[in-house]
């Protein structure tokens, strides 16, 4: 997968992967937030089960 926003280092500025595709960056942000929320939900579920099993 070609993720480079540049074809030459001459005059390069933002050069990170997908830098030329802000919609994708926003999507990755949303997915990242989703991962965090999912993990917190999983954490709460684990706690509920642990308390119930005691």
């Amino acid at each position, binding site marked *: 997968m070609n993720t480079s926003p540049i074809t030459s280092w001459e005059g390069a500025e*933002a050069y990170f992967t997908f830098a030329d595709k802000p919609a994708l960056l926003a999507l990755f942000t949303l997915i990242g937030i989703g991962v*965090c929320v999912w993990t*917190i939900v999983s954490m709460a579920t684990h706690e509920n089960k642990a308390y119930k099993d005691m």
Partner: protein
Amino acid sequence: MEQSVPELMARLDSLESSLSMATTINSEVFYWWCTALMLAIHAGFLAYEMGASRAKNALASGMKNLIAFAFLIPAFYYVGWWIYLAFPSGFSIAEGSEAGLPWSEFMGPNLTDNASGIFYAAFTLFAATTASIMSGSVIERIRISGFTILAIFLGAVVWILGASWGWHPDGWLTTEWGLHDVGAAGCVHTVAGFFTLGVLINLGPRIGRFNADGTVNNIDGHNMPMSLIGLMLIVMGFFGFLGGCIIYTGDMWTTIYNTPTTLSAFAFNTLMGVAGGMIGAYLVTRDPFWMMSGALIGVISSAPALDLYYPGFAFLVSFAGGCIMPKLNDILVGKFKIDDAVGAVAVHGFGGVWGLIAAGLFASGYPNVAGPDISFVGQLSSAVVFMILGFVPGYALSYVLKVVGLLRVTEKAELAGLDKAEVPVSAYPESSVPAAFTNDPTSPTPAE
């Protein structure tokens, strides 16, 4: 050999370019190491809180710190840095703040921007510090999930809004009221301390902390030496924290408010503050735990005017803080029945307020670059803003978590120990832990 004027000019341009790059690199290196040093704060909080917990809760307390740290890094990337850039004038969004959005070209490797990443990193460590401040107070009965939600809200939203208002060259508390708080006593310590107070009210005390007649039982942690080492690590990390509070421009140092200063000024007053707080807390408590907490009180007491105080006076300001805060903690616990397991509300919340007020009392009249001179009224008013900004969201969010059952562990889990309930490994599987501190629910601690 004589050189022509164009050749000399070209050489001068080259030298200027090299100097500029050296300055940029020095700046990056400086904040890189400040950030690395700040990690010691979190190592310290980890040790200090695990030591302050009973053995049956040691790992759950530590897990809380680790989780808060891990979640705050992305959370601050997603919203925190943007909040700082967006709200210096209050609640209206500042022009140019889009540079802090996570899909901005500046929020990743960029050959024209040597600043965003390194400042994001330093501020993220400040954010994690606010969560760690709350973390110790709530040990041994808070749910990890509820704590994580609170930590994210405090570290990625609440304190950084306070920083945008009062720890920013264009923050309205400075431009309107002349706030001077170079060491972030207000936005970090006061906000986190009062957020914690709001949480503690809804969370309630640990089982056995108070008797029916209102008297207080001490619940000792299982490893005081580990707590003391942790506190010393926090003090060490504060040198990174306070170094990160100074702006390096190449030809001079400035405060966050663009007033000139020196790293030497911070060195003088940080050390004298540490000593003053330790001696003050020792004088009134004789307790090594409070003596090391006194070191933190000392730093926080002098933090707002680290750049201005005469070191001998910073020592006295911090000594006063070290004497006063343990007594305020006694009042919180004894009179108001607030079970703050490590005294963080007093150390950070009231310590921050004292620091802000002290700067108003003893450093009035110094000019600001933007806004009126430093004044008592400006410092006091700003302290009130930070107290409200911390307390209201902390109380409100913890109340919601309480209502939905995400704030506090069950009574059975609390009595058995949170490690047994939630953690798949044991802190001391082969050691000879005194019966009173084991996971055995039939052997409760004396306080229970």
